[in-house]
């Protein structure tokens, strides 16, 4: 025993949560470094200089305050999307339907914007946001209830409901919500009527001297608050605790008396409400109407961002901003280099890939450190031995 202990470094005395936060941060940085490295290789193969390409991307994202505002406004819907994905994921549910819930949220919000235009000032906006969440919730409740009552797998049902959601938007734009006041003699893209200004989310960027093109609205701070609420839900509230138990060990949850179905439906509802907020940036912050060529796929991007942020509400905010910087880099590539814009997608893919690898390594290191402590401090072989950890079969 003494021979073994002598060779071991003394365990550091960082509080576990801080240690895990530092490890997560380092892991993300390492993953980013790998992605940049592999990306450099590809850039070089294209005959460009990685340094110029990256600096073009970075300087474009940070070239002035308006540019920074644009990055944050791109990040805003991604934060909502990733939070929506992560809420379900913590409870062991794979909500692929965030995309559909976001689309339906846009439709219900637009309906509310046009219908409640008599409401004064802020009340109008509040009603619109409420209906955005409500639409997402109702649409998320369907797979939730199906899962709990019939056992239908949520991945299958949500994927199918995503398809239906696309048609719902098309129907709304062609039917009930179709514009009534098109400018005569002009060809106008299919859209709803322009909303009253009271339905729009006020601009935030101008307070910091950003140009109007940044479209940074109050939705960004709302997204930050939402991630704080999600953090609080899972760390400090009974529902979040029960959700984590359900997600980690359904058998123990059931034996402990947790009503698994109830927890799962609640998670779907929360997830749906968050998903409903995704579309608000484009509808209420940028266009002031629901248009036919809306920006889709944000729900799916949310899955990637949630993954990048390791389903941690704080991590998700950073991951969304990182993702936004890369997305913004597309424009920089087109302006300053010969690289195709798809390079950004490749870079995002590599980033996800290296995150998988690096986090696994980090996780193992943390587990090892934990064992090391257990062994060293308790001074017992009686704590878990590596043989319990080791794979059963070679």
């Amino acid at each position, binding site marked *: 025993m003494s021979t073994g202990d002598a060779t071991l470094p003394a365990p550091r005395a960082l509080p576990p949560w801080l240690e895990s936060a530092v490890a997560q941060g380092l892991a993300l940085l390492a993953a980013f470094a790998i992605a940049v490295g592999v990306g450099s290789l590809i850039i070089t193969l294209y005959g460009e200089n990685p340094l110029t390409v990256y600096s073009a991307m970075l300087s474009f994202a940070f070239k002035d305050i308006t540019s920074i505002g644009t990055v944050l406004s791109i990040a805003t819907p991604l934060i909502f999307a990733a939070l929506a994905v992560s809420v379900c994921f913590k409870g062991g549910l794979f909500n692929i339907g965030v995309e559909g819930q976001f689309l339906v949220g846009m439709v219900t919000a637009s309906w509310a914007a046009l219908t409640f235009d008599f409401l004064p000032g802020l009340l109008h906006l509040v009603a619109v946001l409420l209906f955005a969440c409500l639409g997402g919730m109702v649409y998320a409740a369907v797979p939730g209830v199906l899962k709990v009552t019939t056992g239908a797998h949520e991945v299958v049902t949500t994927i199918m409901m995503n398809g239906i959601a696309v048609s719902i938007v098309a129907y709304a734009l062609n039917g009930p919500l179709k514009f009534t006041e098109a400018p005569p003699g002009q060809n106008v893209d299919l859209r709803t009527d322009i909303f009253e200004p009271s339905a729009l989310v006020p601009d935030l960027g101008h307070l910091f001297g950003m140009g109007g093109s940044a479209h940074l609205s109050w939705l960004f701070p709302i997204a930050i608050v939402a991630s704080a609420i999600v953090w609080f839900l899972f760390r400090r509230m009974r529902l979040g605790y029960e959700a984590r138990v359900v997600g980690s060990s359904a058998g123990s949850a059931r034996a402990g*008396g947790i009503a698994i179905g109830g927890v799962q439906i609640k998670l779907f509802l929360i997830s749906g409400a968050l998903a409903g907020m995704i579309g608000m940036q484009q509808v209420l912050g940028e266009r002031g109407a629901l248009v036919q060529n809306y920006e889709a796929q944000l729900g799916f991007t949310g899955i990637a961002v949630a993954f990048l942020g390791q389903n941690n509400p704080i991590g998700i905010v950073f991951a969304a901003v990182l993702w936004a910087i890369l997305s913004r880099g597309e424009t920089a590539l087109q302006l300053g280099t010969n690289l195709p814009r798809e390079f950004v997608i490749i870079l995002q893919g590599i980033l996800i890939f290296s995150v998988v690898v690096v986090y696994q390594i980090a996780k193992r290191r943390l587990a090892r450190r934990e*064992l*090391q402590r257990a062994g060293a401090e308790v001074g*017992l*072989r009686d704590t*878990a*031995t590596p043989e319990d950890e080791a794979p059963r079969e070679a």
Partner: protein
Amino acid sequence: MSDERGAGRESAPPLVVMEHITKRFPGVVANDDVSLELRPGEVHALIGENGAGKSTLMRILYGMYPASEGRILLEGEEVSISSPRVALQHGIGMVHQHFVLVDPFTVTENVILGDEGSVILDMETAHQKVADLAQTYGFQVRPSAVIEDLSVGEEQRVEILKALYRGVEVLILDEPTAVLTPLEAKDLFTNLRRLRDDGKAIVFISHKLDEVLAIADRITVLRRGTVVGETTPAEASKAKLAEMMVGRPVLFRLEKPDVEIGEPILEVEGLLGEGKLNGIGLQVRAREILGVAGVEGNGQKELAEALIGLRKSAAGTIRLAGTDITGWPVADIRNAGVAFIPEDRHEQGLVLSMTLWENAVLGREDDPPFSGRTGFLFIERIKEMAKRLVKLFDVRARSINVAASTLSGGNQQKLVLARELDTSPKLLIASQPTRGLDVGAIEFVWRQILDQKKEGRGVLLISAELDEIYALSDRIVTIYEGRITGEYAPDAPPEEIGVGMLGAADTAEAS
């Protein structure tokens, strides 16, 4: 029995010599200067508590881990065993606790897997070879049978055949009886004796002392990674072996508290469900421990799950202290005063990835002291409670903030026990409460269960270990194919209870 023992071939040179093996893992020295000799024609038992280093030592021999120090000699020559494949080439085979068989394949297909010979399979020859092997060693298993149709005992035979097919001379068995019924274990011992008489060296890893005394020719005891002694069944006794393993005397019979048995707490009548429960009726009274004995798979798991509300019964009633709780959800049954120690603590007891304090509150998170009406958790109170429980039950952990997965099995079980008993239940359902625990932890758990009687609680003890049933029960019933087949006094001879475990008493009753 002892006359059946192998000669041990004292004169024969040892087949395998492990010299001064040391194995370090981060923070732990799993093996510290261990030396071991294996001779042809002997069953060599390797015993010790969980984590004593038995499995590690054998995994080094089987090439799964490299040793940090020390060397391995095979028939006098030093060898380097870098992988299980190399170990097999050297004639060393290992059968793990968890089998690695391909379920839809036949016995022969599984046996030749990884050693198929040429590109084109000669199934006829392989078939014949497997049949011959089975014949030689008296293994009752059909080469053409499909794995998924086999019992656990038969699957184990296939695993052993796999090793024999590759011509091993040294066969390592890691806790082979942990998954077997008593009868299957007996068959296994017969097979092992045949192999031993054929000159093979067999390593038998176990912490069940009765079995070790029955089968072993030599016994090596490990404690905390070092060899604390070598002995033979003739020289050793159960008590002595236990003391060597734990490092202090262990009581196999604890004193049962002398309390007067009270009113019925649990009354079960005609419980039916899903083919596994065929009309169970039983009663547990206050300050009484009722032992349910039976070979595993006769409805014990289903009974426990029906009582705690995890399983709906088709018919029958369950009354708790006079209240009909049939069909109630788990949470309500728990609130009414039932505590549950599941047979699989990883599946139904703990969330391994979560911390000790989070596990300590599982199932009680909506109780007033731990969360408010609005759904907020009172983390400080939960942590206080967890600290108290960890101290009270001597759960050895660095802090309550570590994950439950870092605890040993014994400490995990203590945590489950602490949580369940802290609710002051009327009834405790303890399902295989000491499964996989070592001697020291077993004693602790037994003491806790016995102490329930002093608290006026009733205990339903379900166990496949007769030892445990005897040590704790005030009354014993046997279960067979989902029915209660007999009731016995706590001092009834094992043969009598054995009859009930095989269902015979029931037939007698019926006729």
